[in-house]
């Protein structure tokens, strides 16, 4: 199995991301544009406590782990497109590491 075949594309990640974030953020997240700033789009609902819940939801949905110091979590979790990019990059890294360890 090639690495690329197990990694969802960005459109699929975004779809799964919206579904995962609708639990902590409600249905409003479905209508938020990819590049919209989540704080501006969702207002006070998207505070640091809500962002924490979103990180947990992303970790659970995609099986990745966020590092609160090494990763710039405030920047990454400010738009849906940045989260998507982060998830895709982390999945690719994990797949590459698995491939290297299998070799």
């Amino acid at each position, binding site marked *: 199995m090639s690495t690329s075949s197990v990694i969802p594309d960005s459109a699929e990640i975004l779809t799964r991301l919206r579904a995962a974030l609708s639990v902590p953020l409600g249905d409003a997240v479905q209508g938020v544009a990819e590049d919209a700033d989540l704080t501006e789009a969702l207002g006070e609902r998207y505070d*640091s406590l809500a962002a924490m819940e979103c*990180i947990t939801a992303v970790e659970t949905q995609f099986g990745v782990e966020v590092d*609160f*110091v090494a990763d710039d979590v*405030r920047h990454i979790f400010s738009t849906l497109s940045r989260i998507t990019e982060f998830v895709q990059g982390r999945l690719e890294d994990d797949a590459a590491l698995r491939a290297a360890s299998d070799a």
Partner: protein
Amino acid sequence: MMVSKDLVADPSAIGTSSGRPDLWCTYAAIRTLAWLNRPDGFVDGERTARYLSSRRNGDGGYAWSRGMASDAWATYYCTQGLTDLLRFGIAEAALGGVAQTTRWLDTTWSGDAFAMMPGQAPDAWATFFSTRTAVEICSGSETVDTERLLKWLSGLQTADGGLAWTPEHAARGEADARACFYGVLAWRALTRTGAHPAPWDVERLVAWLRAQQTPEGGFRFSPDAEVPCMWATYRATVALDALGSGPAAPRACVSWITSLRGETGAFVRWEGYPVEDVWASFCAIGSLRALRAPTEPYADAVTARMRRLACAEGGYTYREPDLAADALSTSASILSHQALGVTTADPAIETRRRWLRGCLLPNEGGVMYMPARGSEVRCTLWALEAGALDGAAHLAGRITPWLRGLQNPDGGFGYWEGRGSDVVSSVSAAEIRRILGDGHGDPLDTAELLRFLDSCRTPGPDEDWQAGNVPGGEPTLRATLQALRARQLLGTPDPRAVARTLTRHHVPGGGYANTGNRIPDLLSTYEAVLTATRHSIPLDREHIRRFCDRVTQEHGTAWTPLAPADGRDLLAECVGDLLRQWVSDDAAALPALTIS
């Protein structure tokens, strides 16, 4: 009775204001305007409602500020303030999730009365707040056992007739006009649920309250108080009214109240006090209502004054926002200046220290968060660490007896007089003793404080020493290290327990987490460094630097990697400045700053 010249605020001293609203000030302003039926005093009612509702936590309770744990005090002030605003048609004030608030209140029920937070011992403050919240906001709670609550309230009466903070304080004979108010008004709230006779010897209670009226006409907190004040007068007159009585000399009381007015016509706390603060007008109008005296002659001046105290982001503070300095912000600004290399001889530092000394006022010997608000143990510690008594060491003689009186019968300390004990306040008390020394007598009972700290210990793996902030509380890094730091100061150090705690909460990327080891935060990392250095445990400065780099943002220092920094949070700036200094300077020592 005159105020000592040592305790008269120096008008040339300037503290540091955050410019932000305060919860108690906001409640006092709203309630005063509601009493006067003056909605024109609500400068931006919708924003004020949002300020109050934003204190709500996921557990249904409310907190003093966002991100802090819920407590009875904040829950009462927020829900009452929102209810008052709703009466005036301010739509944003609609209370949501009352059932959840009821469930949170139930977690603070001890079986006999209410505690300020789950796990704490009940006290008169919390019992008043939560009985009223339960009866007036939540329409009753099935958990509250009225008979047991009345029995607990009955135990507040002291041998001389007044009421104390808890039955244990009553056994020590420590009656206070504020405790009388809280006890009596909790009982009165209960009478809404049925006919319950007052559970005290009312004749002796009335006599004790009346005896607190001074020849000037105002009331004092207790026979030990130095001067009569508007706060004590409000608590006493309302309690007497609720008991169907009144002062022995009501006209003298009204004259005293109405004489204490400043240039704007709003009220001041006591004779000669220069600031017409929010609480003085709240207490004056509340007292006049209890005395059945007219309030209309003062309504215009008080309403205009309240409008001047409104903050841009909604809510109110105690005086004009740009002048509304507080002890924590002022101490933080001094300590930040020092961390950034400003010498202690800088005039700006000395004028702030003089302002802090102005927070030592009559009737309570500690430093007040805001002048005339009531002494607070954490603020006293921050002020002392910021050098408030430099050049005024004689004032330590006021703080020591106040601290001694603050120790609760369970051995611990609470934030202020009569408030239930917790580890944060207890380690603050131990640090205050370290700074003041024993030149004015020992301010605390070591064995009793150790007993309280042990009661906060929770079972951990391998018999580790772990503690929650209150007995039965969830163990956290901060509570555990604060308890261990206090134990060291009390002569029972346990460096192995400190080392194990640090290992347990070490975040690999950088910093320390309060729970688990994933999400580091500024306060926990500061506590880790402080307690480790006190126990001579070496830390990796590079590991702390990585954390500092992550929370250092364009506009200032953030409390966590997820939180935004806006540069206006002086406490976060101070803690960040001190940690960054520690990372870069081997000789830097952290002051014992403790907030939660």
